[in-house]
């Protein structure tokens, strides 16, 4: 919560790219490379998106669910004065993403106040993936929910670029680009941007990309904002890089990465 992003737990949990790009020891032992790690997270974000589309929840719930999923697999170190350090970091080997992803959606739907029934998730997962590895029961979700809560250290509030976007677009005179910007923001959840940058920067980067795509001269508007344009441009570059590399990602590569994960007995 907290209206003020700068005092929120989200802000305090922002990391650098290098800190996010670390594969858990247990996963490395299974042969999962950084590239696999990213692919699996992207695949899971897509999975959450597909599932959410079926059970009909708001985009915000999807965004929060993806953020939860990414946070679970990211190393967070909590420094507690006088008590010591506590680490929050889970491996894909222990926490099967195929169960974790739908559970994140389940938890996010509660946290964002539009609850989805667990049985619906079980039902639609069976519809989307016929593969037995994606099978799970309601009790798996409920068990995983508790584990996720712990792994997130009970921090459930996530800020998203959507709100900033809807406020910035009219101000930039780019109401006609709402659709494209919204899509861009949706796509940023296939990357780790939400763990690294303040959401309004992500929104700005998406507007920046959109104004380039639409050939709209927005330099003056961006200058008036008094934000570090280097950060905005870097995020924009990352987004464009992602689109470039995304063309190379094939179903086989994702499957190869997923197959490195141990199958739950």
């Amino acid at each position, binding site marked *: *919560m*907290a*209206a003020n*992003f700068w005092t*929120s*737990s989200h802000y305090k949990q922002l990391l650098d790219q290098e800190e996010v790009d670390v594969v858990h020891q247990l996963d490395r032992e299974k042969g999962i490379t950084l590239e696999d790690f990213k692919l699996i997270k992207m695949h899971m974000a897509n999975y959450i*998106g597909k599932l*959410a*589309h079926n059970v*009909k*929840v*708001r*985009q915000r*719930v*999807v965004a929060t669910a993806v953020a939860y999923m990414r946070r679970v697999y990211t190393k967070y170190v909590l420094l507690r004065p006088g008590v010591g350090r506590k680490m929050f970091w889970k491996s894909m080997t222990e926490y099967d993403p195929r169960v974790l992803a739908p559970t994140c959606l389940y938890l996010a739907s*509660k*946290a*964002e*106040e*539009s*609850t989805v029934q*667990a049985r619906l998730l079980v039902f639609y997962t069976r519809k989307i993936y016929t593969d037995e590895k994606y099978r799970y029961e*309601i*009790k798996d*979700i*409920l068990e995983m*929910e*508790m*584990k996720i*809560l712990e792994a997130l250290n*009970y*921090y*459930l*509030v996530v*800020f998203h670029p*959507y*709100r*900033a976007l*809807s*406020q*910035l677009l009219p*101000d930039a005179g780019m109401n006609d680009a*709402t*659709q*494209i910007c*919204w*899509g*861009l923001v*949706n*796509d940023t*959840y296939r990357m780790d941007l939400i763990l690294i940058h*303040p*959401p*309004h920067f992500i929104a700005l980067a998406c507007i920046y990309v959109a104004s380039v795509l639409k050939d709209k001269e927005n330099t003056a508007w961006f200058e*008036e*904002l*008094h*934000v570090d344009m280097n950060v905005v441009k870097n995020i924009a570059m990352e987004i464009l890089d992602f*689109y470039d590399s*995304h063309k190379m990602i094939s179903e086989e590569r994702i499957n190869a990465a997923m197959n490195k994960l141990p199958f739950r007995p």
Partner: protein
Amino acid sequence: MSEVDHLLSKKVADRYLKREVLGEGTYGVVYKAIDTKTGQTVAIKKIRLGKQKEGVNFTALREIKLLKELKDSNIIELIDAFPHKGNLHLVFEFMETDLEAVIRDRNIVLSPADIKSYLQMTLKGLAFCHKKWVLHRRDMLGWLRGFLMGSSWGGKQSAAATGKEVDVGLFRVCKQKKRLPMFGANVVPVVWQCFGDVRGHGRGDNGGLLAMVELHRCKGSVLGMIFGDGQQKISANCWNFGSSDVEGDALVFARWYRAPELLFGAKAYGPAVDVWAAACIFAELLLRRPFLQGNSDIDQLGKIFAAFGTPKLSQWPDMQYLPDYVEYQYVPGQPLRQLFPMASDDALDLLSKMFMYDPKARISALQALEHRYENLSITFPISDFWLSILFYPRYFSSGPPPTEPALLPRPPPKRDSLNPKVSDFNQREGPIVLSPPRKSRRVMPHREGIGHTYQVDKVDDHVDEIKPAAGERSEHVPMSLDFSVFGARPPSRPTINRAKQVLVESSNM
């Protein structure tokens, strides 16, 4: 759960030594416990997992979510959380008593300074929540239970003792549209949003009660794959309220603490509802009994109007647009002085501002903390800051200063912690504050008042004794609302003018 996980959770659970049961909440049991690591006394709330396979309770999750972000000395601290034997356990700082027990305990004399202190703590907690755009919305048992007193009270670490707002299960997050651009150092760049399915249809203007909610839909992504159903709602210029249980919404507070806009069925409301409830507590502190005790929503409004007068449209223009608005027969209301004979002028002035009908005109929690009683008999240029300080006493800085929280009176430690309420009722006489669940009981004054504390005798469940008691009422009993308004003369029944309600009534016959 894997072996390692199981051992870990057991280890955490072993850290706390469970003691007696403190109470039973809506979704779990609260235990007293000792943290063996720090020696601290804590309260552990065990959240039962629903049998309906719904996982962690929705309300409990909301409580966790908000408490993890709300850290303030006037809000209870969520120290830790851990799963154990399939249940989620929340570790809170231990609170010794609650405000309801303080008000109810007739052995406690509350001085004006004490009242000031309690009110100040309540408002501070509220102001903090409102700053974070969270509404308090206390649950059905009213605020009083939720307002607990620090455990360190008067004891070893007296400096830390403060009143705290607890049980945020019903806290909700509000959103408010901010003006652009928003990239200054201390301007909020991203507004926390918690959109539910409320679709407010706005008629209110600037900062109005009714929210204008627009719906923006965007589908799909640049990659051509649909990432869920993109949907966003934007609220216009006003506090709005994200919620998925629209029907539950108007039922947020115990009725006696409910603001008139909620009683008129407002679906979108703001922090002003909390201020109204705080005003009811203020009144309760002054009177030592609940101030407005309606036995239905209609009756509650009747009680409010009988005390303050039926609002005129000029006082509250938006009133007529509220969903459940019905026209009430005009009653003039009473001077506050008559309702609260013992209160000081500045207290009454603050009270009147907190009891303002129009939520837009109602004082905010923050303004209330900085309240200034403007005595109109003295006039001088406003620009003279120091003069205004001298002549416009503020409630919280004039007269007796608020009592240090550590020095506040407190009830004796509870013996029967499982059901303290019952023992209280049987052992003590005097001003007993009844909670809404016991609303069938009446509070009847028939003794002399001492100080501002009314000696009010409770007639237990013997309803038939009420009438003779009312007849015996002696003349020197201080005027109190029960008699002057509702006791002596029959309450003026609200006239229902709305066709729909009349239809409902006639169909019942």
